[in-house]
């Protein structure tokens, strides 16, 4: 499936995956969906400070990629990072506690939604600066090779982020150094409120990989199995020392750029949103799994139920957690 640069056509979607993989993808997506919809409700109820960039709609990408990774593989994320964190295995408790600004949070309450990280899970951080995670992943991949480890680094970024210098410099650096980096473009068609057609003249972000001699592939970002297959191939390739590769996943965010709704100026038509929602990545996988006999409806429902319980417990934990102590304002500014 890997193509040499320049890329010519989209990869074929294949629906074959083991039952185990399907269930894994499903669980990761449900975990993201419920984490996000509950976070959205908390934000709307005025319980969370700061900004909240929701990932709902894009779950197949995080789930598909993360299911292809090991715990010691590293990822760098974006301002829309909850889905990546959840799929990489970061716990609900420390994530909600962080959204609430509690001292038990992933950043001890210092970072909030845009800065969640977890080194034990290879989650090198969400990022408030568009494109900034790309070179950091390149550095993480460099470190793996330097130390003789076979972990890979994956960097997530949006279509909009590929207009920033850090993306281009990072891509070229990874290519020329032949580093084990997988570039995942989550193309949801918009950078904030600007449609892709208004911020780049190309249709496929994957074309940009060609400029750096990097192979690339385009996948249906609503199809977790397709994403997983492409990611598995790219990750194996990188792990084997064949260098970086880019995957462009065409996807969509169901909510607003920031928060749930509250658009003052509609920038997407209702029809467009409805059309993408009709291709809900979780519905797609569930329908297929039940039809294939991979999973029963009851099994799938059970995942939702268990996850709901876990989330309710995590929110209660976050709400009961103490606030940080202002006396510790200078904590972690420096080491030692």
């Amino acid at each position, binding site marked *: 499936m890997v193509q040499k640069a320049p890329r010519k056509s989209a990869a074929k979607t294949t629906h074959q995956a083991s039952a185990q993989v399907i269930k894994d993808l499903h669980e990761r997506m449900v975990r993201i969906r419920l984490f996000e919809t509950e976070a959205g409700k908390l934000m709307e109820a005025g319980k969370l*400070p*700061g*900004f909240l960039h929701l990932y709902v709609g894009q779950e197949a990408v995080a789930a598909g990629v993360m299911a292809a990774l090991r715990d010691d593989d590293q990822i760098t994320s974006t301002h829309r990072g909850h889905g990546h964190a959840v799929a990489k295995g970061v716990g609900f408790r420390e994530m909600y506690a*962080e959204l609430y*600004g*509690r*001292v038990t949070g992933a*950043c001890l*309450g*210092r*970072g*909030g939604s*845009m*800065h969640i990280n977890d080194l034990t899970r290879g989650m090198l951080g969400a*990022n*408030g*600066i*568009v*494109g*900034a995670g790309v070179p950091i992943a390149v550095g993480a991949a460099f470190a793996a090779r330097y130390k003789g480890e076979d972990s890979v680094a994956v960097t997530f970024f949006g279509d*909009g*982020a590929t*207009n*920033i*210098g*850090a993306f281009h410099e990072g891509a070229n650096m990874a290519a020329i150094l032949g580093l084990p980096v997988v570039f995942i473009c989550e193309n949801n068609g918009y*950078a*904030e*409120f*600007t449609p892709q057609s*208004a*911020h*780049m003249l190309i249709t496929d972000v994957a074309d940009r990989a060609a400029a750096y001699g990097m192979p690339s592939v385009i996948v249906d970002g609503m199809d977790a199995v397709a994403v997983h297959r492409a990611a598995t191939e790219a990750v194996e390739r990188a792990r084997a020392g064949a260098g970086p590769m880019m995957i462009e996943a065409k996807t969509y965010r169901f909510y607003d750029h920031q928060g749930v709704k509250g658009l*003052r*100026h509609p*920038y997407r038509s209702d029809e467009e949103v409805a059309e993408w929602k009709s291709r809900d990545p979780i519905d797609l996988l569930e329908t297929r799994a039940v039809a294939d006999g991979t999973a029963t409806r009851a099994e799938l429902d059970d995942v939702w139920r268990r996850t709901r319980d876990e989330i309710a417990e995590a929110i209660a934990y976050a709400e009961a957690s103490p*606030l*940080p102590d*202002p006396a510790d*304002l*200078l904590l972690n*500014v420096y080491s030692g």
Partner: protein
Amino acid sequence: MTTTKTPTVATRKLTYVKAFNEGLAQAMREDENVFVAGEDVAGYGGVFRMFDNLLDEFGPRRMIDTPISEAALVGLGVGAAARGLRPVVDLMFMDFIGVCLDQIVNQAAKMKYMFGGALSVPLTITTASGAGLGAAAQHSQSLEAWLAHVPGLKVVMPSDAYTAKGLTVSAIRDDNPVVVMLNKVLLGSTSEVPEEIYGIPLGQAHTARQGSDVTVIALGRMVGEALAAADELAAEGVEIEVIDPRTVQPLDTETMFASVRRTNRVLVVHEAVTFGGLGAEIAAQIQDAVFDYLDAPVLRIGAPFSPVPFSPVLEKAYVPDRARIAQGCRRLLERS
């Protein structure tokens, strides 16, 4: 260049963000060479509504939505300014100057000097700075000290709606690169704003309140906090003089010195980190010029030496407020 008319009567109140918008629109009407470029400024009207309705009036020739490419965005402004236009480029959050600092510091600021004065760079950079929205470490900084340190740049910090309009107009009319630092927390605040176009002279401080006991020199949002502290202290029989420099580069030290000669005590307050902040510069200049008039060492209040924390409890402790200013004044009065 248009001469600066001083406003006569203020008839109505306007929000800070609307006052900015009005000043910008009037400056665009006044000079055909003024155009605006930035991310989501045209179609969406800016994420802070700074550019609302401008596309309707000025059209896409003068209101330009750009890709997320801050280095190219500022560079576009530099090149266009060098060729005689008067660009207004918007950086949304001040923190994003991190990705385009070369264009600001090494290019815009030095071009006139390096060209032997043969050209000027009448570039205006608008951006929103400051903490208080739970936007955390990468979306909350006040980086005026970085910029004020660079010869060739001017930096203005509007403290209310009136100054937001007047300083913006002056920035656009000025033949030098000027950074207009709007404050996020002040966006919705109101004050009296004349309807006609007016500029506030750059490099001229304003005495926001007269008093005889302590001079408080406050930057940006801290002006309001200092005025509130002054009210509190007035009830205790202490008269605080509040000086709003309005422009931090060039800095009107004469107004400050004159005040110190009357009050003999000075407190400088800004929301930026204290270390290496403008408070140090102001304190040093005061000690150099009017040391003999001081009854106590100049006191500085600013943020601790830490990134801006997310958790509201920490953020509140981080940013100086009226209570800390009042306390600082009391401390100054206890000494001598």
